[in-house]
Protein backbone atom coordinates (compact mmCIF):
# COMPACT_ATOMS: atom_id res chain seq x y z
CA UNK A 1 0.00 0.00 0.00
CA UNK A 2 2.74 2.35 0.98
CA UNK A 3 4.62 1.49 -2.20
CA UNK A 4 1.52 1.97 -4.34
CA UNK A 5 0.81 5.37 -2.87
CA UNK A 6 4.37 6.55 -3.38
CA UNK A 7 4.37 5.22 -6.92
CA UNK A 8 1.07 6.85 -7.82
CA UNK A 9 2.17 10.19 -6.50
CA UNK A 10 5.39 9.96 -8.45
CA UNK A 11 3.49 9.13 -11.62
CA UNK A 12 1.26 12.14 -11.00
CA UNK A 13 4.28 14.38 -10.71
CA UNK A 14 5.65 12.95 -13.91
CA UNK A 15 2.36 13.85 -15.62
CA UNK A 16 3.44 17.48 -15.49
CA UNK A 17 6.63 16.65 -17.33
CA UNK A 18 4.82 14.48 -19.85
CA UNK A 19 2.21 17.13 -20.55
CA UNK A 20 4.86 19.73 -21.25
CA UNK A 21 6.80 17.36 -23.48
CA UNK A 22 3.61 16.39 -25.28
CA UNK A 23 2.72 20.04 -25.82
CA UNK A 24 6.11 20.80 -27.32
CA UNK A 25 6.02 17.67 -29.45
CA UNK A 26 2.50 18.24 -30.75
CA UNK A 27 3.11 21.88 -31.50
CA UNK A 28 6.35 21.06 -33.29
CA UNK A 29 4.83 18.20 -35.23
CA UNK A 30 1.83 20.30 -36.27
CA UNK A 31 4.06 23.19 -37.24
CA UNK A 32 6.40 21.00 -39.22
CA UNK A 33 4.92 21.54 -42.71
CA UNK A 34 5.17 25.30 -42.20
CA UNK A 35 8.62 24.99 -40.68
CA UNK A 36 9.78 23.08 -43.71
CA UNK A 37 8.05 25.33 -46.19
CA UNK A 38 9.12 28.67 -44.78
CA UNK A 39 11.97 28.05 -42.36
CA UNK A 40 13.23 30.91 -40.25
CA UNK A 41 12.20 33.35 -42.96
CA UNK A 42 8.68 32.92 -41.61
CA UNK A 43 9.60 35.12 -38.67
CA UNK A 44 10.34 38.15 -40.84
CA UNK A 45 7.87 37.65 -43.66
CA UNK A 46 4.96 40.09 -43.42
CA UNK A 47 2.73 38.28 -45.95
CA UNK A 48 -0.07 36.05 -44.70
CA UNK A 49 -1.98 33.77 -47.02
CA UNK A 50 -0.71 35.49 -50.15
CA UNK A 51 -0.84 33.52 -53.37
CA UNK A 52 2.57 33.71 -54.92
CA UNK A 53 2.76 32.73 -58.58
CA UNK A 54 5.23 29.99 -59.36
CA UNK A 55 6.63 29.36 -62.80
CA UNK A 56 5.52 26.25 -64.62
CA UNK A 57 9.05 24.99 -64.79
CA UNK A 58 8.37 25.43 -61.19
CA UNK A 59 11.11 24.44 -58.96
CA UNK A 60 14.02 26.24 -60.51
CA UNK A 61 12.41 29.64 -60.50
CA UNK A 62 11.03 28.95 -57.06
CA UNK A 63 14.43 27.95 -55.88
CA UNK A 64 16.15 31.04 -57.17
CA UNK A 65 13.41 32.97 -55.50
CA UNK A 66 14.00 31.08 -52.32
CA UNK A 67 17.71 31.47 -52.63
CA UNK A 68 17.46 35.23 -52.95
CA UNK A 69 14.96 35.19 -50.14
CA UNK A 70 17.41 33.25 -48.07
CA UNK A 71 20.27 35.57 -48.91
CA UNK A 72 18.02 38.41 -47.96
CA UNK A 73 16.91 36.52 -44.92
CA UNK A 74 20.24 35.47 -43.48
CA UNK A 75 21.11 39.03 -42.79
CA UNK A 76 17.92 39.56 -40.88
CA UNK A 77 17.51 36.27 -39.15
CA UNK A 78 19.79 37.43 -36.36
CA UNK A 79 17.68 40.50 -35.98
CA UNK A 80 14.63 38.31 -35.91
CA UNK A 81 16.08 36.31 -33.06
CA UNK A 82 16.90 39.48 -31.19
CA UNK A 83 13.34 40.61 -31.52
CA UNK A 84 12.10 37.58 -29.73
CA UNK A 85 14.41 38.14 -26.82
CA UNK A 86 12.12 41.02 -25.92
CA UNK A 87 14.79 43.33 -24.63
CA UNK A 88 14.92 45.57 -27.65
CA UNK A 89 13.83 49.14 -27.35
CA UNK A 90 11.28 50.52 -29.73
CA UNK A 91 13.69 52.34 -31.98
CA UNK A 92 15.52 49.38 -33.49
CA UNK A 93 12.21 47.63 -33.85
CA UNK A 94 10.86 50.48 -35.82
CA UNK A 95 13.90 50.36 -38.06
CA UNK A 96 13.23 46.72 -38.52
CA UNK A 97 9.69 47.46 -39.47
CA UNK A 98 10.64 50.03 -42.07
CA UNK A 99 13.12 47.59 -43.50
CA UNK A 100 10.39 45.05 -43.74
CA UNK A 101 7.90 47.27 -45.45
CA UNK A 102 10.51 47.93 -48.08
CA UNK A 103 11.20 44.28 -48.54
CA UNK A 104 7.49 43.69 -48.83
CA UNK A 105 7.37 46.15 -51.69
CA UNK A 106 10.20 44.32 -53.33
CA UNK A 107 8.27 41.13 -52.88
CA UNK A 108 5.26 42.61 -54.59
CA UNK A 109 7.36 43.82 -57.45
CA UNK A 110 8.70 40.35 -57.82
CA UNK A 111 5.18 39.04 -57.95
CA UNK A 112 4.17 41.63 -60.51
CA UNK A 113 7.20 40.91 -62.59
CA UNK A 114 6.38 37.26 -62.70
CA UNK A 115 2.72 37.66 -63.38
CA UNK A 116 3.16 37.11 -67.12
CA UNK A 117 4.41 33.58 -67.02
CA UNK A 118 2.25 32.54 -64.13
CA UNK A 119 1.11 28.96 -64.21
CA UNK A 120 0.75 27.79 -60.64
CA UNK A 121 0.47 29.50 -57.33
CA UNK A 122 1.68 28.69 -53.91
CA UNK A 123 0.49 30.17 -50.65
CA UNK A 124 3.00 32.02 -48.54
CA UNK A 125 2.60 32.61 -44.84
CA UNK A 126 4.76 34.85 -42.73
CA UNK A 127 4.51 35.68 -39.07
CA UNK A 128 6.06 39.12 -38.96
CA UNK A 129 2.83 41.07 -38.46
CA UNK A 130 1.55 39.13 -35.44
CA UNK A 131 5.05 38.86 -33.99
CA UNK A 132 5.54 42.59 -34.20
CA UNK A 133 2.02 43.16 -32.94
CA UNK A 134 2.75 41.04 -29.89
CA UNK A 135 6.07 42.79 -29.29
CA UNK A 136 4.67 46.30 -29.65
CA UNK A 137 1.55 45.75 -27.59
CA UNK A 138 3.52 44.04 -24.84
CA UNK A 139 6.23 46.70 -24.79
CA UNK A 140 3.65 49.44 -24.66
CA UNK A 141 1.78 47.65 -21.90
CA UNK A 142 4.94 47.26 -19.84
CA UNK A 143 5.96 50.89 -20.34
CA UNK A 144 2.60 52.04 -19.04
CA UNK A 145 2.02 49.40 -16.40
CA UNK A 146 5.37 49.43 -14.62
CA UNK A 147 5.31 53.02 -13.30
CA UNK A 148 1.65 52.85 -12.33
CA UNK A 149 1.96 49.45 -10.66
CA UNK A 150 5.03 50.65 -8.76
CA UNK A 151 3.10 53.73 -7.69
CA UNK A 152 0.27 51.58 -6.40
CA UNK A 153 2.64 49.15 -4.68
CA UNK A 154 4.57 51.93 -2.92
CA UNK A 155 1.38 53.72 -2.05
CA UNK A 156 -0.18 50.62 -0.54
CA UNK A 157 2.82 49.47 1.45
CA UNK A 158 4.54 52.68 2.48
CA UNK A 159 2.32 55.71 2.08
CA UNK A 160 -1.29 54.80 2.73
CA UNK A 161 -2.56 54.59 6.30
CA UNK A 162 -3.65 51.14 7.48
CA UNK A 163 -7.37 51.79 7.22
CA UNK A 164 -6.98 52.76 3.56
CA UNK A 165 -4.16 50.48 2.49
CA UNK A 166 -5.79 47.24 3.53
CA UNK A 167 -9.15 47.48 1.73
CA UNK A 168 -7.54 48.98 -1.36
CA UNK A 169 -4.99 46.18 -1.33
CA UNK A 170 -7.74 43.57 -1.17
CA UNK A 171 -9.59 45.36 -3.97
CA UNK A 172 -6.47 45.27 -6.14
CA UNK A 173 -6.05 41.56 -5.53
CA UNK A 174 -9.67 40.92 -6.42
CA UNK A 175 -9.27 42.92 -9.61
CA UNK A 176 -6.34 40.70 -10.53
CA UNK A 177 -8.76 37.77 -10.44
CA UNK A 178 -11.30 39.24 -12.86
CA UNK A 179 -11.45 37.27 -16.13
CA UNK A 180 -9.52 38.99 -18.90
CA UNK A 181 -12.49 38.89 -21.25
CA UNK A 182 -14.10 41.57 -19.08
CA UNK A 183 -11.17 43.89 -19.72
CA UNK A 184 -11.52 43.22 -23.43
CA UNK A 185 -15.22 44.05 -23.51
CA UNK A 186 -14.70 47.22 -21.56
CA UNK A 187 -11.88 48.16 -23.91
CA UNK A 188 -14.04 47.61 -26.95
CA UNK A 189 -17.10 49.53 -25.81
CA UNK A 190 -15.73 52.27 -23.57
CA UNK A 191 -11.99 52.63 -23.48
CA UNK A 192 -11.36 52.30 -27.24
CA UNK A 193 -13.74 55.10 -28.24
CA UNK A 194 -12.35 57.19 -25.37
CA UNK A 195 -8.77 56.79 -26.62
CA UNK A 196 -9.85 57.36 -30.21
CA UNK A 197 -11.47 60.63 -29.21
CA UNK A 198 -8.18 61.81 -27.71
CA UNK A 199 -5.55 60.49 -30.09
CA UNK A 200 -7.67 60.10 -33.19
CA UNK A 201 -7.65 57.01 -35.33
CA UNK A 202 -9.79 53.96 -34.93
CA UNK A 203 -11.22 52.70 -31.66
CA UNK A 204 -9.47 49.38 -32.23
CA UNK A 205 -5.75 49.84 -32.50
CA UNK A 206 -2.34 48.87 -31.26
CA UNK A 207 -2.47 51.74 -28.79
CA UNK A 208 -5.78 50.65 -27.26
CA UNK A 209 -4.58 47.04 -27.12
CA UNK A 210 -1.39 48.04 -25.32
CA UNK A 211 -3.26 50.19 -22.83
CA UNK A 212 -5.94 47.61 -22.09
CA UNK A 213 -3.19 45.06 -21.60
CA UNK A 214 -1.46 47.47 -19.22
CA UNK A 215 -4.62 47.99 -17.21
CA UNK A 216 -5.11 44.25 -17.05
CA UNK A 217 -1.65 43.48 -15.67
CA UNK A 218 -1.47 46.46 -13.29
CA UNK A 219 -3.38 44.81 -10.41
CA UNK A 220 -1.37 41.65 -10.81
CA UNK A 221 1.98 43.42 -10.87
CA UNK A 222 1.01 45.81 -8.08
CA UNK A 223 -0.11 43.02 -5.77
CA UNK A 224 3.07 40.99 -6.31
CA UNK A 225 5.34 44.03 -5.94
CA UNK A 226 3.56 45.10 -2.80
CA UNK A 227 4.16 41.68 -1.29
CA UNK A 228 7.83 41.96 -2.24
CA UNK A 229 8.09 45.45 -0.71
CA UNK A 230 6.32 44.35 2.43
CA UNK A 231 9.02 41.87 3.34
CA UNK A 232 11.53 44.68 3.90
CA UNK A 233 12.29 44.47 7.62
CA UNK A 234 10.95 47.39 9.62
CA UNK A 235 14.24 47.62 11.49
CA UNK A 236 16.05 48.64 8.30
CA UNK A 237 13.53 51.31 7.48
CA UNK A 238 13.39 52.62 11.03
CA UNK A 239 17.14 52.97 11.26
CA UNK A 240 17.13 54.95 8.02
CA UNK A 241 14.39 57.21 9.34
CA UNK A 242 16.37 57.59 12.55
CA UNK A 243 19.32 59.11 10.72
CA UNK A 244 16.98 61.62 9.09
CA UNK A 245 16.17 60.08 5.73
CA UNK A 246 13.01 61.26 4.04
CA UNK A 247 10.36 58.82 2.90
CA UNK A 248 11.58 59.05 -0.67
CA UNK A 249 15.13 58.27 0.37
CA UNK A 250 14.03 55.32 2.45
CA UNK A 251 12.04 53.90 -0.44
CA UNK A 252 14.77 54.59 -3.00
CA UNK A 253 17.76 53.45 -0.96
CA UNK A 254 16.38 50.87 1.45
CA UNK A 255 13.11 49.40 0.23
CA UNK A 256 13.75 49.10 -3.50
CA UNK A 257 17.23 47.60 -3.23
CA UNK A 258 15.97 45.13 -0.66
CA UNK A 259 12.89 44.12 -2.67
CA UNK A 260 14.55 44.41 -6.07
CA UNK A 261 14.52 40.73 -6.95
CA UNK A 262 10.87 40.33 -6.02
CA UNK A 263 9.85 43.45 -7.92
CA UNK A 264 11.71 42.43 -11.07
CA UNK A 265 10.22 38.97 -10.73
CA UNK A 266 6.73 40.43 -10.57
CA UNK A 267 7.42 42.47 -13.69
CA UNK A 268 8.65 39.49 -15.65
CA UNK A 269 5.78 37.27 -14.59
CA UNK A 270 3.42 40.05 -15.67
CA UNK A 271 5.32 40.28 -18.94
CA UNK A 272 4.74 36.58 -19.47
CA UNK A 273 1.07 37.11 -18.81
CA UNK A 274 0.85 40.01 -21.25
CA UNK A 275 2.66 38.04 -23.96
CA UNK A 276 0.16 35.22 -23.97
CA UNK A 277 -2.97 37.22 -23.26
CA UNK A 278 -5.70 36.56 -25.78
CA UNK A 279 -9.08 37.84 -24.77
CA UNK A 280 -8.22 41.30 -23.50
CA UNK A 281 -6.41 41.97 -26.77
CA UNK A 282 -8.69 40.16 -29.19
CA UNK A 283 -11.47 42.71 -28.77
CA UNK A 284 -9.38 45.80 -29.25
CA UNK A 285 -6.43 45.16 -31.56
CA UNK A 286 -8.44 44.97 -34.77
CA UNK A 287 -7.31 41.59 -36.07
CA UNK A 288 -6.02 42.96 -39.37
CA UNK A 289 -2.91 41.62 -41.06
CA UNK A 290 -1.12 44.86 -41.74
CA UNK A 291 1.99 46.39 -40.32
CA UNK A 292 1.00 49.34 -38.17
CA UNK A 293 2.51 52.62 -39.33
CA UNK A 294 1.36 54.55 -36.32
CA UNK A 295 0.29 53.54 -32.87
CA UNK A 296 -3.34 54.17 -33.70
CA UNK A 297 -3.42 51.64 -36.55
CA UNK A 298 -5.13 48.30 -36.05
CA UNK A 299 -2.93 45.22 -36.32
CA UNK A 300 -2.88 41.73 -34.86
CA UNK A 301 -0.95 39.72 -32.27
CA UNK A 302 -0.02 36.04 -32.09
CA UNK A 303 -2.72 34.94 -29.61
CA UNK A 304 -5.35 36.92 -31.50
CA UNK A 305 -4.40 35.31 -34.81
CA UNK A 306 -4.73 31.96 -33.12
CA UNK A 307 -8.09 32.88 -31.63
CA UNK A 308 -9.58 34.30 -34.82
CA UNK A 309 -8.18 32.12 -37.59
CA UNK A 310 -7.73 28.74 -36.02
CA UNK A 311 -11.12 27.20 -36.55
CA UNK A 312 -11.30 28.11 -40.24
CA UNK A 313 -7.79 26.99 -41.10
CA UNK A 314 -6.51 23.76 -42.49
CA UNK A 315 -3.43 22.40 -44.19
CA UNK A 316 -0.60 24.82 -44.58
CA UNK A 317 -2.36 27.77 -42.94
CA UNK A 318 -3.15 25.69 -39.89
CA UNK A 319 0.44 24.59 -39.79
CA UNK A 320 1.56 28.21 -40.00
CA UNK A 321 -0.68 28.98 -37.04
CA UNK A 322 0.97 26.17 -35.11
CA UNK A 323 4.30 27.68 -36.04
CA UNK A 324 3.15 30.91 -34.38
CA UNK A 325 1.86 29.04 -31.34
CA UNK A 326 5.18 27.26 -31.10
CA UNK A 327 7.08 30.56 -31.23
CA UNK A 328 4.81 32.05 -28.58
CA UNK A 329 5.19 29.03 -26.36
CA UNK A 330 8.97 29.04 -26.60
CA UNK A 331 9.21 32.76 -25.95
CA UNK A 332 6.99 32.72 -22.88
CA UNK A 333 8.75 29.58 -21.68
CA UNK A 334 12.10 31.34 -21.94
CA UNK A 335 10.83 34.50 -20.28
CA UNK A 336 9.47 32.62 -17.28
CA UNK A 337 12.44 30.34 -17.04
CA UNK A 338 14.83 33.30 -17.10
CA UNK A 339 12.72 35.06 -14.49
CA UNK A 340 12.82 32.10 -12.18
CA UNK A 341 16.51 31.55 -12.52
CA UNK A 342 17.62 35.11 -12.20
CA UNK A 343 15.33 36.54 -9.62
CA UNK A 344 13.56 33.94 -7.61
CA UNK A 345 16.77 32.18 -6.76
CA UNK A 346 18.05 35.38 -5.28
CA UNK A 347 14.87 35.84 -3.30
CA UNK A 348 15.60 32.66 -1.46
CA UNK A 349 18.99 33.89 -0.27
Amino acid at each position, binding site marked *: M*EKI*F*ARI*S*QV*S*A*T*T*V*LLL*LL*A*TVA*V*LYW*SAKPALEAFGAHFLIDPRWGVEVPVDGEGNEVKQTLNASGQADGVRRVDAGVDEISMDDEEVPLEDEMNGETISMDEGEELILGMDEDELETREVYGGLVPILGTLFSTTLAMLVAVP*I*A*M*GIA*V*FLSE*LAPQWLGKPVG*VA*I*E*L*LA*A*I*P*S*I*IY*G*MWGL*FFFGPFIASIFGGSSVSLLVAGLVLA*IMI*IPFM*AALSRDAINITPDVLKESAYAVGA*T*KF*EVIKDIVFPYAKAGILGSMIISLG*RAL*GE*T*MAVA*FVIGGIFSLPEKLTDPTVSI*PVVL*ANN*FAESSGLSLSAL*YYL*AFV*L*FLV*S*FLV*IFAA*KHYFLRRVKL
Partner: protein
Amino acid sequence: MTQIKRFFINKLFIVISTLTALLGLVFLGWILWTLFVKGFEALSLTVFTTDLVNGGLRNLLWGQFVLSVLATVLAVPIGLLAGIYLQEYGNHSRYAEFIRELSDVMMSAPSIVVGTFVYAILVVPVGHTNGWAGIVALAILMLPIVVRTTDDMLSLIPRELREAGVALGVPKYRIITDIIIRAAKVGIVTGLLLAFARVMGETAPLLYTSGTSEYWTTNLGETFPSLTVAIYNLATMPDEALSKLAWAGALLLTLFVLILNITGRYLIRDKR
Protein backbone atom coordinates in the same frame (compact mmCIF):
# COMPACT_ATOMS: atom_id res chain seq x y z
CA MET B 1 19.25 74.59 0.59
CA THR B 2 19.88 70.92 -0.02
CA GLN B 3 17.59 70.29 2.90
CA ILE B 4 14.78 72.12 1.15
CA LYS B 5 15.54 70.27 -2.05
CA ARG B 6 15.41 66.93 -0.29
CA PHE B 7 12.09 67.69 1.29
CA PHE B 8 10.78 68.99 -2.00
CA ILE B 9 11.79 65.81 -3.81
CA ASN B 10 10.20 63.82 -1.06
CA LYS B 11 6.91 65.69 -1.34
CA LEU B 12 7.00 65.45 -5.11
CA PHE B 13 7.60 61.72 -4.94
CA ILE B 14 4.74 61.17 -2.54
CA VAL B 15 2.39 63.21 -4.68
CA ILE B 16 3.40 61.43 -7.89
CA SER B 17 3.15 58.01 -6.32
CA THR B 18 -0.27 58.79 -4.88
CA LEU B 19 -1.43 60.16 -8.21
CA THR B 20 -0.32 57.10 -10.18
CA ALA B 21 -2.05 54.91 -7.63
CA LEU B 22 -5.15 57.03 -7.99
CA LEU B 23 -4.94 56.89 -11.79
CA GLY B 24 -4.69 53.12 -11.78
CA LEU B 25 -7.57 52.82 -9.34
CA VAL B 26 -9.72 55.17 -11.39
CA PHE B 27 -9.40 52.96 -14.46
CA LEU B 28 -10.04 49.81 -12.51
CA GLY B 29 -13.04 51.46 -10.87
CA TRP B 30 -14.27 52.52 -14.29
CA ILE B 31 -14.20 48.91 -15.50
CA LEU B 32 -16.18 47.65 -12.51
CA TRP B 33 -18.64 50.52 -12.79
CA THR B 34 -19.46 49.89 -16.45
CA LEU B 35 -19.63 46.17 -15.82
CA PHE B 36 -22.14 46.60 -13.02
CA VAL B 37 -24.24 49.25 -14.72
CA LYS B 38 -24.43 47.46 -18.07
CA GLY B 39 -24.76 44.06 -16.46
CA PHE B 40 -27.58 44.85 -14.06
CA GLU B 41 -29.38 46.69 -16.83
CA ALA B 42 -29.43 43.52 -18.88
CA LEU B 43 -30.12 41.09 -16.07
CA SER B 44 -33.58 39.65 -15.75
CA LEU B 45 -35.24 36.41 -14.77
CA THR B 46 -35.48 35.14 -18.35
CA VAL B 47 -31.70 35.18 -18.49
CA PHE B 48 -31.70 32.27 -16.06
CA THR B 49 -34.70 30.38 -17.36
CA THR B 50 -34.16 30.25 -21.12
CA ASP B 51 -31.39 29.03 -23.40
CA LEU B 52 -29.42 31.20 -25.77
CA VAL B 53 -31.71 30.40 -28.71
CA ASN B 54 -34.53 32.07 -26.81
CA GLY B 55 -32.46 34.95 -25.51
CA GLY B 56 -31.27 33.59 -22.18
CA LEU B 57 -28.05 32.29 -20.71
CA ARG B 58 -29.24 29.15 -18.96
CA ASN B 59 -27.45 26.61 -21.13
CA LEU B 60 -24.26 28.69 -21.13
CA LEU B 61 -24.12 28.98 -17.35
CA TRP B 62 -24.73 25.27 -17.12
CA GLY B 63 -22.10 24.49 -19.72
CA GLN B 64 -19.40 26.65 -18.17
CA PHE B 65 -20.12 25.19 -14.76
CA VAL B 66 -19.98 21.60 -15.99
CA LEU B 67 -16.75 22.18 -17.89
CA SER B 68 -15.07 23.81 -14.92
CA VAL B 69 -16.27 21.24 -12.40
CA LEU B 70 -15.21 18.27 -14.53
CA ALA B 71 -11.86 19.91 -15.22
CA THR B 72 -11.44 20.25 -11.48
CA VAL B 73 -12.37 16.61 -10.97
CA LEU B 74 -9.72 15.67 -13.50
CA ALA B 75 -6.95 18.00 -12.36
CA VAL B 76 -7.27 17.90 -8.58
CA PRO B 77 -6.35 14.25 -7.85
CA ILE B 78 -3.34 14.38 -10.16
CA GLY B 79 -2.24 17.79 -8.93
CA LEU B 80 -2.74 16.87 -5.30
CA LEU B 81 -0.72 13.69 -5.61
CA ALA B 82 1.98 15.47 -7.58
CA GLY B 83 2.19 18.13 -4.88
CA ILE B 84 2.43 15.44 -2.22
CA TYR B 85 5.21 13.77 -4.15
CA LEU B 86 7.16 17.00 -4.46
CA GLN B 87 6.90 17.81 -0.78
CA GLU B 88 6.83 14.42 0.95
CA TYR B 89 8.68 11.95 -1.21
CA GLY B 90 11.04 13.72 -3.54
CA ASN B 91 11.53 16.82 -1.49
CA HIS B 92 15.13 17.62 -2.18
CA SER B 93 15.88 15.31 -5.04
CA ARG B 94 16.92 16.78 -8.37
CA TYR B 95 13.95 15.27 -10.10
CA ALA B 96 11.47 16.90 -7.73
CA GLU B 97 13.13 20.28 -8.12
CA PHE B 98 12.98 19.85 -11.88
CA ILE B 99 9.28 18.99 -11.85
CA ARG B 100 8.59 21.89 -9.50
CA GLU B 101 10.29 24.24 -11.88
CA LEU B 102 8.47 22.86 -14.91
CA SER B 103 5.16 23.12 -13.13
CA ASP B 104 5.79 26.77 -12.37
CA VAL B 105 6.74 27.45 -15.96
CA MET B 106 3.65 25.61 -17.13
CA MET B 107 1.53 27.78 -14.87
CA SER B 108 2.43 30.80 -16.99
CA ALA B 109 2.10 29.09 -20.37
CA PRO B 110 -0.21 31.08 -22.66
CA SER B 111 -3.68 29.60 -22.32
CA ILE B 112 -4.34 29.84 -26.04
CA VAL B 113 -1.38 27.58 -26.72
CA VAL B 114 -2.90 24.97 -24.44
CA GLY B 115 -6.00 25.31 -26.59
CA THR B 116 -4.06 24.63 -29.78
CA PHE B 117 -2.44 21.60 -28.18
CA VAL B 118 -5.76 20.09 -27.12
CA TYR B 119 -7.23 20.91 -30.51
CA ALA B 120 -4.55 18.80 -32.15
CA ILE B 121 -4.98 15.78 -29.88
CA LEU B 122 -8.72 15.77 -29.11
CA VAL B 123 -10.60 17.82 -31.68
CA VAL B 124 -8.88 16.89 -34.93
CA PRO B 125 -9.30 13.11 -34.43
CA VAL B 126 -12.98 13.52 -33.51
CA GLY B 127 -13.61 15.98 -36.29
CA HIS B 128 -15.63 18.54 -34.37
CA THR B 129 -15.43 20.54 -31.16
CA ASN B 130 -16.54 18.62 -28.09
CA GLY B 131 -16.98 19.04 -24.37
CA TRP B 132 -14.25 16.60 -23.41
CA ALA B 133 -11.63 18.63 -25.23
CA GLY B 134 -12.73 21.71 -23.31
CA ILE B 135 -12.48 19.84 -20.03
CA VAL B 136 -8.99 18.58 -20.80
CA ALA B 137 -7.82 22.05 -21.83
CA LEU B 138 -9.10 23.56 -18.59
CA ALA B 139 -7.63 20.70 -16.57
CA ILE B 140 -4.20 21.26 -18.13
CA LEU B 141 -4.41 24.90 -17.12
CA MET B 142 -5.51 24.00 -13.63
CA LEU B 143 -3.00 21.24 -12.94
CA PRO B 144 0.10 23.38 -12.26
CA ILE B 145 -1.90 25.68 -9.98
CA VAL B 146 -3.06 22.72 -7.90
CA VAL B 147 0.49 21.34 -7.76
CA ARG B 148 1.86 24.66 -6.63
CA THR B 149 -0.84 25.18 -3.99
CA THR B 150 -0.45 21.71 -2.52
CA ASP B 151 3.31 22.02 -2.55
CA ASP B 152 3.20 25.39 -0.76
CA MET B 153 0.61 24.39 1.78
CA LEU B 154 2.35 21.14 2.72
CA SER B 155 5.64 22.99 3.14
CA LEU B 156 3.99 25.01 5.91
CA ILE B 157 3.24 21.94 8.01
CA PRO B 158 5.74 21.69 10.86
CA ARG B 159 8.23 18.86 10.78
CA GLU B 160 7.25 17.78 14.29
CA LEU B 161 3.86 16.58 13.09
CA ARG B 162 5.52 14.24 10.64
CA GLU B 163 7.99 13.06 13.24
CA ALA B 164 5.19 12.40 15.70
CA GLY B 165 3.58 10.15 13.13
CA VAL B 166 6.81 8.32 12.44
CA ALA B 167 7.37 7.83 16.17
CA LEU B 168 4.03 6.06 16.40
CA GLY B 169 5.12 3.68 13.69
CA VAL B 170 2.44 4.78 11.24
CA PRO B 171 3.16 4.03 7.58
CA LYS B 172 4.11 7.08 5.58
CA TYR B 173 1.03 7.17 3.41
CA ARG B 174 -1.14 7.18 6.53
CA ILE B 175 0.89 10.03 7.94
CA ILE B 176 0.26 11.95 4.74
CA THR B 177 -3.45 11.24 4.42
CA ASP B 178 -4.37 11.37 8.11
CA ILE B 179 -2.03 13.97 9.55
CA ILE B 180 -0.49 16.23 6.95
CA ILE B 181 -3.38 16.62 4.55
CA ARG B 182 -5.72 17.14 7.47
CA ALA B 183 -3.51 19.88 8.87
CA ALA B 184 -3.18 21.59 5.50
CA LYS B 185 -6.83 21.13 4.58
CA VAL B 186 -7.97 24.73 4.78
CA GLY B 187 -5.07 26.07 2.75
CA ILE B 188 -5.49 23.45 0.08
CA VAL B 189 -9.24 23.95 -0.20
CA THR B 190 -8.67 27.68 -0.55
CA GLY B 191 -6.12 27.10 -3.27
CA LEU B 192 -8.53 24.83 -5.08
CA LEU B 193 -11.27 27.45 -4.88
CA LEU B 194 -8.98 30.03 -6.43
CA ALA B 195 -7.88 27.60 -9.12
CA PHE B 196 -11.52 26.82 -9.87
CA ALA B 197 -12.27 30.53 -10.12
CA ARG B 198 -9.38 30.94 -12.50
CA VAL B 199 -10.48 28.24 -14.96
CA MET B 200 -14.07 29.40 -14.68
CA GLY B 201 -13.13 32.67 -16.33
CA GLU B 202 -10.95 31.20 -19.06
CA THR B 203 -11.97 31.80 -22.64
CA ALA B 204 -8.97 31.28 -24.88
CA PRO B 205 -8.48 27.52 -24.37
CA LEU B 206 -12.18 26.87 -24.96
CA LEU B 207 -12.54 28.80 -28.22
CA TYR B 208 -11.97 25.82 -30.45
CA THR B 209 -11.96 22.92 -28.03
CA SER B 210 -15.46 23.01 -26.56
CA GLY B 211 -16.70 25.75 -28.83
CA THR B 212 -20.09 27.02 -27.75
CA SER B 213 -23.64 26.06 -28.50
CA GLU B 214 -26.99 27.76 -28.47
CA TYR B 215 -28.80 24.76 -27.08
CA TRP B 216 -29.04 22.92 -23.82
CA THR B 217 -27.01 19.74 -23.92
CA THR B 218 -25.64 17.17 -21.54
CA ASN B 219 -23.69 15.29 -24.19
CA LEU B 220 -20.02 16.02 -23.72
CA GLY B 221 -19.20 14.39 -27.03
CA GLU B 222 -20.86 17.28 -28.83
CA THR B 223 -20.03 20.95 -29.10
CA PHE B 224 -20.65 22.19 -25.59
CA PRO B 225 -22.08 25.54 -24.46
CA SER B 226 -19.55 27.82 -22.83
CA LEU B 227 -20.40 31.15 -21.26
CA THR B 228 -17.06 32.83 -21.88
CA VAL B 229 -16.84 31.83 -25.54
CA ALA B 230 -20.44 32.93 -26.02
CA ILE B 231 -19.66 36.30 -24.43
CA TYR B 232 -16.83 36.72 -26.91
CA ASN B 233 -19.13 35.97 -29.82
CA LEU B 234 -22.13 37.93 -28.55
CA ALA B 235 -20.29 41.09 -27.53
CA THR B 236 -19.38 41.92 -31.10
CA MET B 237 -22.82 41.23 -32.54
CA PRO B 238 -24.58 44.25 -34.00
CA ASP B 239 -27.85 43.13 -32.40
CA GLU B 240 -28.42 45.26 -29.31
CA ALA B 241 -30.21 42.50 -27.40
CA LEU B 242 -27.35 40.06 -27.91
CA SER B 243 -24.64 42.44 -26.77
CA LYS B 244 -26.77 43.22 -23.73
CA LEU B 245 -26.89 39.53 -23.04
CA ALA B 246 -23.10 39.45 -23.23
CA TRP B 247 -22.90 42.09 -20.51
CA ALA B 248 -25.29 40.13 -18.33
CA GLY B 249 -23.10 37.07 -18.79
CA ALA B 250 -19.95 39.05 -18.04
CA LEU B 251 -21.48 40.37 -14.83
CA LEU B 252 -22.59 36.92 -13.66
CA LEU B 253 -19.17 35.49 -14.45
CA THR B 254 -17.36 38.26 -12.58
CA LEU B 255 -19.67 38.02 -9.59
CA PHE B 256 -19.13 34.30 -9.38
CA VAL B 257 -15.36 34.62 -9.63
CA LEU B 258 -15.29 37.39 -7.05
CA ILE B 259 -17.48 35.43 -4.64
CA LEU B 260 -15.16 32.43 -4.92
CA ASN B 261 -12.16 34.66 -4.26
CA ILE B 262 -13.73 36.34 -1.28
CA THR B 263 -14.77 32.97 0.14
CA GLY B 264 -11.20 31.77 -0.25
CA ARG B 265 -9.88 34.79 1.60
CA TYR B 266 -12.43 34.37 4.32
CA LEU B 267 -11.41 30.75 4.86
CA ILE B 268 -7.76 31.66 5.25
CA ARG B 269 -8.47 34.58 7.55
CA ASP B 270 -10.62 32.38 9.75
CA LYS B 271 -7.72 30.04 10.22
CA ARG B 272 -5.29 32.75 11.15
